[in-house]
C-alpha cells in the first residue's frame, strides 16, 4: 500500500508539472537543444528569469528535468524516464504500430493541408 502511495505521488508530480503551458514550452526548448543553462533558456522564452527558475524547480521535482554541473555552469537536461514509465503503463506493446500509423496519417494530412 505504501509502495502504491509513493508511486502515485511521483506520477502525480509528473502530471502536475505537465499541466502548464510554460513548463511544456521549457521541455520543448530542452527537447530542441538539451543541456541549456538558465540564461540560455531565458533567451528564447518570453518569461522572466524568476518565472523560468520557478518552473524549472517544479520540473526537477517531477524528475522531468535533470541537472548537471559543469564547472560553475548548471546545465538542464530533459529527462524522459518518467514519460517512458507513463508510456509503458498505458500503451501496450501491440498498440504501438497502430498508434504510429495514425500519427503518420495525421501528420501527412496536416502537411498536405499546409501545401494546398
Amino acid at each position, binding site marked *: 500500500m505504501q509502495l502504491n502511495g509513493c508511486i502515485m505521488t511521483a506520477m502525480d508530480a509528473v502530471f502536475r508539472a505537465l499541466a502548464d503551458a510554460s513548463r511544456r514550452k521549457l521541455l520543448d526548448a530542452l527537447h530542441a537543444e538539451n543541456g541549456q543553462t538558465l540564461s540560455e533558456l531565458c533567451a528564447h522564452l518570453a518569461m522572466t528569469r524568476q518565472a523560468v527558475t520557478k518552473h524549472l524547480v517544479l520540473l526537477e521535482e517531477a*524528475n522531468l528535468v535533470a541537472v548537471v554541473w559543469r564547472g560553475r555552469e548548471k*546545465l538542464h*537536461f530533459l529527462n*524522459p524516464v518518467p*514519460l517512458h514509465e507513463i508510456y*509503458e503503463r498505458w500503451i501496450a*506493446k501491440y498498440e504501438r504500430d497502430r498508434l504510429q500509423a495514425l500519427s503518420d496519417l495525421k501528420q501527412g494530412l496536416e502537411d498536405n493541408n499546409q501545401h494546398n
Partner: protein
Amino acid sequence: MEKSTFVYVTFIRTTPEKLWAAITETEVPREFFWATTLHGEIRAGAKWHSTAPDGTVVDGGEILELDPPKRLVLSWQHEMQEEKKAEGVSRMTYTLEPKDGMVKLTVLHEMDRGQSKFIEAVSNGWPVILSSLKTMLETGEALEDTRTW
C-alpha cells in the same frame, strides 16, 4: 570542446546495494538490458565488454572509477556498427544516491564530440533500460521489451 551529453534520472524503491548488484552483475543475461551479458572483473582499470545472446560483442571499455555502492565510471565504445564505433570512446557514469527511502540513479553518458550518432542512439535506449531496471527491482520482473535481444 564540443560535447554530446545525455542525462537520465530515475528513482527506484530499493537499496543502493541491490541496485549496485544489478548494474555490476556479470556472466548472466540481464533482463533489463535486452538480455545482453556483462563480462569482466569489477575493479578499477579492468576491461569490460557486453555480448548479445548469440555471443556478438555489443559494447566494451574499461572501468575508470569504482566506489561501491555510489559511483561507477566506465569508458564505453560501441563495437557492432562501424559508424558508431568510429566515433571512439564515450564515458558513462552511474551515480547512486539514497533519497527518501529510494535510490536516485543518475546515468550520464557523454562523448567529446558534437552531434554524436552513438550518443543519439543510446539516448533512445537508456530510458527503456532504466524504466525496466526500476520495474525489475520493484516488482521482481523486468519489462517485456528488454527481456529479449
